[in-house]
């Protein structure tokens, strides 16, 4: 009887251990040993940026107590839609950036004007290329990282972006949920950003 109880206890301990999951996201760049650690404990998932895989030196991204499964699923679905939009939006934007100077040459603004349009188009193309929120690959990766199940996988990015930049992007998307809770009064400039997180009627006052 005693042995059976002991076995049951050991089994339960193992079960508990199995329930708490740890997953890592590694960078695609070999020079970066840093990882994003995703830990699941009692239904709450925490994200942290660590110096290397087994390091204790970690910075938490977003809320320290973690995010519930429903919140993450909702955010993840939103990111998946965004990735679908970005797949079309990004090529269109970069095409605009490339063709703007050519189009400007066809108008009577002259060579000097075309020079200004050209330099503006270079910075526009840079912005489009480097903005992670516009990149379909980064948004798709974020969908995968935000899924509650990602605490049980080891992942490596296939897309050559610095993991530092990606962790900033992740933190930005995670803190959006809480940032919007801080503005119950009529800050009209936050309305557009927060509409999807807070019902619109809360902004009237």
């Amino acid at each position, binding site marked *: 009887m005693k042995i059976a109880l002991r076995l049951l206890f050991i089994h339960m301990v193992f079960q508990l251990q199995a329930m708490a*999951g740890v*997953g890592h996201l590694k960078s695609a760049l070999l020079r970066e040993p840093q990882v994003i650690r995703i830990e699941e404990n009692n239904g709450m998932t925490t994200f942290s940026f660590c110096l290397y895989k087994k390091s204790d030196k970690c910075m938490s991204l977003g809320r320290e107590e973690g995010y519930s499964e429903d919140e993450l699923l909702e955010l993840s679905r939103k990111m998946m839609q965004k990735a679908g939009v970005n797949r079309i939006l990004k090529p269109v934007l970069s095409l605009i950036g490339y063709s703007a100077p050519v189009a400007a040459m066809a108008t009577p603004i002259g060579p000097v004007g075309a020079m200004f349009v050209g330099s503006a188009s270079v910075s526009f193309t840079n912005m489009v290329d480097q903005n992670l929120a516009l990149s379909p690959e980064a948004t798709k990766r974020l969908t*995968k990282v935000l899924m509650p199940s990602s605490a049980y996988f080891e992942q490596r990015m296939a897309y050559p972006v610095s993991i530092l930049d990606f962790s900033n992007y992740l933190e930005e998307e995670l803190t959006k949920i809480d940032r919007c809770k801080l503005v119950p009064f009529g800050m009209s400039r936050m309305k557009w950003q927060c509409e999807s997180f807070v019902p619109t009627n809360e902004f009237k006052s």
Partner: protein
Amino acid sequence: MKKLLPLIATALIGLNAMASTLEIRDQKTDHKLFVMEEEGKIEFKYCEGASDCRVLGMKSYTRTEFEEQAKEIEEQQSFQKVENAIYAGAAFLFPIVFFKAERIMMVEKLGKVRGLEAAMPKSFGYKLGAIGGIMLPIANSVLMQEDLSDKEHVTNSVLTLDGDDQINSVEQYVEVLGEVLTEIEMRRL
């Protein structure tokens, strides 16, 4: 009967092991990955050392999910082929359109002398710059395409439950497996 019991036990254990378990070992470290299939459910267990084991993935996965994934990878591969064909066509047609067609259009519009004057210069440097400016982004987008061969390999070895049992790095194998599993999870979203 008593003598037979150990024999039966070993036979059962042997049968159980045959009931499709794939054990993947590392050449350098003692990391191991077990892929087990029981009653149509596939489970993964990753061991970093003798006692440090954990289950990969949310719960068990079904065979159909992996078949769907294999189909999806095939589709992606054929899509990549189409994309490459479009890029190759663009790379072939662009210089012709850029120089020949433009020249013909200008000559038709303005007459021979003024048309050739208005057309783009024929110098080598100009040609190189214009063609390189378009070719580089095209080559870049061909090179940036995702490499699907690893994913295909892992999906197939899970489906057939055989393949390499001793490989260079189990850690990398687990990463690719994680990628396959996240894609299956993403389809559930």
